[in-house]
């Protein structure tokens, strides 16, 4: 053997590239991050597949939860964050109850979802609410401070008999701030969805014509919105009915409150009279009761830890549950105080209500509330993917 010539720089680089591309790198940092977000027993998993097979939802695609745990353990972050399985799960806990290693796959899915909320948020803003309890508290306090400051700036001199919210803060201001807030939150959500879809590599149905693709995307949207968002049919496959009704109450309560607000706005700001109970006020009160009751249910479950899904609560879960409960309770009591003409009570509740709702909405794209957007989006994409693969099977490989 003799050396004929030294290897050129490009030859060495080619070799390096081949090595880098053909090796799977295990990155243990991802699992560490997920551990801190609540997947505390992730490392116990020995990959038996019981969780996937027992899951009432993994029927057509067996993408979760075992596969997701594998992704997490080898550090395949992109794969983890691209899986719709993260958002399909309703946390029935069957996987954790049946896990022979007590690796708690359900908590792992929740932790991954927290991680996804972090990663999907623009500028990684959501990290503030998932990094540490200190940063979470600072973030929450900062937003609350802005709300209080804003309130002080726009506050008028209220009349006391009878109480008139209009005199406390003019409805015009509420309206303008509300619209601006809606715009900011909406844009944030859109930006986040764009990041999410980049992770998810939404590229299905290329081989079909434009009309087929449009039709499939639209029908999947209609199907996922009606079946999964409005009826939450898959949630029913998960065992606990009380939880299903609570979640439905929360969803429809929130929707009802939004509709009542919109109607009130369209009829002319704050023109909805107290008597005789007009439809939009009745709707608002009913929706508010449903919303508050559901918020209370979740809060109490988390306190009592008597069901699998409520046993381990991350700080972000507490914040979400507390804000919902607070918003609901202050809203209902505010309405009550208007009917009993208690001005002091009405104004203080109104102030509190405004601050809480401000927190809830501003934080929505960066906290647990974001699942209200991510889940339907993932379900839509999942539905479309299934439809396209069905189409592909129909058309064969011709």
């Amino acid at each position: 053997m003799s050396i004929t010539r030294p290897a050129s720089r490009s030859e060495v680089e080619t070799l390096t590239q081949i090595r880098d591309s053909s090796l799977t790198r295990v990155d243990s940092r991802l699992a560490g991050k997920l551990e801190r977000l609540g997947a505390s027993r992730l490392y116990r998993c020995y990959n038996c597949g019981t969780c996937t097979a027992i899951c009432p939802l993994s029927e057509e695609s067996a993408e979760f939860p075992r596969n997701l745990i594998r992704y997490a353990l080898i550090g395949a972050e992109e794969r983890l964050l691209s899986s719709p399985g993260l958002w399909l799960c309703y946390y029935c806990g069957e996987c954790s109850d049946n896990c022979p290693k007590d690796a708690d796959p359900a908590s792992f899915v929740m932790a991954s979802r927290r991680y996804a909320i972090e990663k999907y948020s623009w500028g990684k803003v959501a990290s503030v609410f998932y990094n540490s309890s200190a940063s979470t508290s600072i973030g929450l306090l900062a937003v609350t401070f802005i709300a209080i400051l804003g309130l002080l700036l726009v506050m008028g001199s209220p009349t006391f008999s009878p109480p008139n919210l209009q005199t406390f803060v003019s409805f015009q201001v509420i309206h303008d701030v509300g619209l601006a807030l809606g715009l900011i939150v909406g844009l944030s959500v859109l930006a986040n969805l764009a990041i999410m879809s980049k992770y998810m590599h939404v590229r299905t149905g290329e081989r079909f014509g434009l009309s087929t693709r449009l039709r499939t995307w639209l029908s999947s949207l209609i199907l996922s919105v009606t079946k999964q968002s409005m009826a939450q049919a898959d949630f029913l496959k998960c065992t606990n009915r009380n939880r299903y009704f609570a979640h439905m109450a929360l969803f429809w309560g929130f929707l009802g409150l939004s509709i009542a607000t919109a109607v009130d706005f369209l009829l002319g700001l704050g023109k909805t009279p107290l008597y005789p109970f007009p439809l939009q006020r009745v709707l608002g009160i009913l929706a508010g009761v449903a919303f508050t009751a559901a918020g209370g249910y979740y809060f109490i479950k988390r306190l009592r830890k008597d069901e699998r899904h409520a046993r381990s609560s991350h700080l972000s879960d507490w914040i979400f549950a507390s804000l919902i409960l607070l918003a609901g309770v202050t809203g209902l009591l505010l309405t009550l105080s208007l009917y009993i003409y208690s001005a002091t009570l009405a104004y203080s509740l109104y102030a509190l209500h405004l601050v809480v709702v401000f927190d809830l909405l501003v934080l929505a794209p960066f906290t647990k509330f974001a699942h209200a957007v991510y889940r339907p989006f993932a379900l839509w994409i999942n539905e479309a993917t299934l439809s396209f693969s069905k189409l592909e099977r129909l058309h064969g490989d011709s």
Partner: protein
Amino acid sequence: MEIPKMTKPVLVIGGGIAGIQTAVDLAEQGIKTYIVEKTPSIGGKMAQLDKTFPTLDCASCILTPKMVAVAKNKNVELLTYAEVQSVSGSAGDFTVKVLKKPRYVRIEKCLGCGECITKCPMPVPSEFNLGMSKRKAIYWPFPQAVPLFSTIDAEHCLYFTKNVCRVCERFCPTEAIDFKQEPQIIELNVASIVVATGFQMLDPSLLPTYGYGKHANVRTSLEFERLVSATGPTAGEIVRLSDKKHPESIAFIQCVCSRDVRINPNCSAFCCTASVKQAILAKEHIPNVKSTVFYMDLRAFGKGYQEFYDRARGEFGVDFIRGRPAKIDEVPETKNLLITYENTQTGRLCKKEVEMVVLAVGVKINPIEQFIDLPLEEDGYVELASPQLDPVSTRREGIFVAGVAAGAKDIPDSVTQASAAAMKASIIATSE
């Protein structure tokens, strides 16, 4: 070499393969050895097996001669149908109280002719065949029992329960039946003790998702062993309990009640290769059967085990699927079984219908704490002085352990440990 002037006896608790091997090795050195066995016969779990891996030797064919040899050895005293009650003293000088249960048969007169058994009118589920066949109230646990004396099971005997019958007494040609026998306490003084108390199978109904006890055609590995054995309840026919037909497909499921933190976190060591063996035996008995083994990790660790597994795959066409089934449902019309699992090598969620399921059930040691004060490990096995360098010594000097009492293991490892324990026990027995 100086020949030891005086030796003291050794006690072996348990007459399974580990206890038998220990006693044989001690007796061969001229040491007086007692075997205390709680059932009427020595032989233990191995006697219930059909074939042994990895050579497919017939279990009785290699075990029975050993059982006979140990019984015939003049240095061995068998105390069958007896239980140790207490152990006191220390190394070199243990006092052991043994309760000898009454057989209601004078063993010095019993010829082992079996006339009493033939005539006994009272059928009782057979422990040896795991309740799948009947024995009589006066019985041998199995035809190759050693010693081959009849035993009356007072719990079921018509004389003891209803004060009638006495048919056995009437027909015994040697007047060996003695309904007046009383339990006896025997006191032994021994130099050292070998605990070879063995194990019991865990109850798979602890895992309700697999439907054992609910679905007729879900059996345990030991039940399958009896079914496939020529001395078993079906004379070696593998049949479904629901319709007595030969199954055309059998699934063997590994790690049932083992490697499961909710029930028993330990690996039972022998199940993987035992199931490979059973899948092969199924093929030998029913040539067109489809055998499938569901496993998480196939731990074929011993000498020749990997090759045995390769044979099952190649020569016998046994299928191996990596995935722990989540549930087993019964198909009501056919009593077939629907297994839900994820094939973790393809990532696909699958369902498989089979005609019979065999659960490779984990083990736990037989309880010993009520008669001997020995530290146990967290996992329930007897604590070893040093798992690496002294794997047969317990935490109590002069008391040794062999077989599954020291940790789940297969027959070759049990026998190896038994010989090692015999050596350790003999050192104390022969020292001044």
